[in-house]
């Protein structure tokens, strides 16, 4: 058989379907991908280095900028790690825990909506993009009402929340969670029965469960490879053990399985939002730990203790005892973990972030080598990567 010369082409970093600044060097034999080499780092901001020079409270806004499509989840992972380091995990008030779960699930829907929108757009289904962003806009409005910002929420605090939920938001959240399953049916009506959509994603980007574990893939990508593992159920945090939800597992292993898996996850998220709203009772939103948690404005200006604590926390920061902890949370994209080492000073000695997208992206060569070049776009979409998190 005659062999042909291979051709090397460059894809990205400025390419609309690489979801940011991902660069791929593809070696092609005709239209078949022989080798794919990802090049990353174009968005590296040195967040781990910066955090060694900031107090624990000051690091929180940096964590929004990791996975900027799911900022609340990064905040949650970070504050849980600091709380564990301080031994404060059991002191978090009930209301704060419930609000954390509520917003984490809202964030999961938000992230999955962007995934569906961009994934479908990459493959050529434009309408769905507009629909998904319409629903996402509602979540952005909730974000703005709750935290004051649309993207970089910075809402959770070590010990609880920065502010209570605004009045009347429960009703709107309930309506939103009621509406989402209907919207999902619209999306499925546009895509699931669509022959082009089926041909473009069925049996594309196959990743077996064994390979997925070997490559460290987590989140929906792992569950769509038939591995039944979800940190919310298996290593519960923030009271997830009190919620009734199903972990969606599919053994299809292909892009189609990941598509159905994520859609069903959004349905489960709506169920969790309803349960969280049922559990939401008035109460304190911050732990009773005056040396760690910032006092309220009223206490700061009216009491001498409040003033001193405020001054000490802002000017110096709190000092956890020497030790090291690792906390992983189930981000929409997979496990995001924070590994903190304290040397007893007000700044972490070392903070290592375990990014979900970074590890998931490592599976890309395995998933697209041997397939057509057009499938590379489908595989990038299905991995649901965010370069802010990969490059840190």
């Amino acid at each position: 058989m005659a062999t042909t010369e291979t051709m090397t082409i460059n894809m990205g970093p400025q390419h609309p379907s690489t979801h940011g600044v991902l660069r791929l060097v593809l070696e092609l034999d005709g239209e078949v991908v022989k080798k794919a080499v990802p090049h990353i780092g174009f968005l590296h901001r040195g967040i781990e280095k910066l955090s060694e020079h900031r107090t624990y409270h000051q690091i929180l806004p940096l964590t929004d900028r990791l996975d900027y499509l799911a900022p609340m989840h990064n905040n949650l992972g970070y504050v849980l790690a600091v709380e564990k380091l301080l031994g404060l995990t059991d002191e978090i008030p009930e209301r704060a825990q419930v609000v954390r779960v509520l917003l984490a699930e809202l964030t999961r829907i938000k992230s999955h909506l962007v995934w569906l929108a961009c994934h479908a757009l990459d493959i050529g289904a434009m309408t769905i993009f507009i629909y998904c962003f319409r629903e996402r806009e509602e979540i952005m409005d909730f974000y703005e009402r709750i935290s004051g910002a649309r993207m970089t929420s910075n809402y959770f605090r070590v010990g609880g929340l920065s502010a209570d939920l605004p009045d009347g938001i429960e009703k709107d959240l309930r309506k939103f969670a009621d509406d989402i399953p209907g919207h999902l049916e619209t999306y499925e009506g546009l895509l699931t029965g669509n022959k082009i959509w089926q041909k473009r994603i069925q049996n594309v980007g196959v990743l077996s469960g064994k390979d997925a574990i070997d490559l460290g893939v987590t989140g929906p990508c792992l569950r769509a490879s038939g591995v039944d593992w979800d940190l919310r159920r298996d290593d519960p945090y923030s009271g997830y053990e009190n919620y009734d939800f199903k972990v969606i597992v599919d053994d299809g292993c292909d892009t189609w399985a990941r598509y159905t898996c994520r859609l069903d996850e959004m349905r489960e998220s709506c169920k969790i939002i309803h349960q969280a709203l049922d559990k939401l009772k008035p109460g304190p939103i911050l732990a009773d730990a005056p040396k760690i948690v910032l006092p309220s404005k009223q206490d700061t200006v009216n009491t001498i203790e409040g003033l001193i604590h405020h001054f000490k926390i802002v000017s110096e920061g709190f000092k956890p005892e020497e030790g090291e902890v690792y906390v992983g949370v189930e981000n929409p994209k997979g496990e995001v973990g924070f590994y903190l080492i304290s040397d007893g000073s007000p700044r972490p000695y070392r903070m290592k972030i375990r990014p979900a997208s970074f590890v998931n992206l490592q599976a890309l060569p395995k998933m697209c080598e041997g397939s057509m070049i057009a499938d590379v776009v489908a595989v990038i979409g299905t991995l649901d990567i965010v370069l802010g998190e990969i490059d840190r």
Partner: protein
Amino acid sequence: MSLQAVVDKLKAKFGDTVLNEKEFRGEVTVVVKKEEIVAVCTFLKDELGFSFLTDLCGVDYLGTAPRFMVVYQLYNIGTHQRFRVKAPVEEGDACIDTVSGVWSTANWHERECYDLMGISFNNHPDLRRILLPDDWEGHPLRKDYPVQGPDREPYQGRLR
């Protein structure tokens, strides 16, 4: 199997290789000699079920000997347990054997550790910088690398 049982099994199998063990907030850390790291990891994966390497990173303890620690965060999918293994690395001989043969996921983690911390991994299939450009000088996560970057005035804003 409790985490203490895991430590006991490691000690029974490897003896002096296990240098130290520690528990903090329910998390168990074991320090092992770097020469045996591949054997320890293979044993943990194949015999004790830690099939998942969650994370791998380097830590710089400037001013102490040995200067570096390479940290492996392991996870057992069956029993939902976490386990941490550390291996000390000397400054003069800043290299350790790769575990990418045990878990493929270690490949990029080790490249990142090499890139940002300057620890080499023997027998690594593709040891290149990953986040920084290929011609970058220095390793930014080392404690003697200034936060503002080399050849620049230190940032004074918060200290003044």
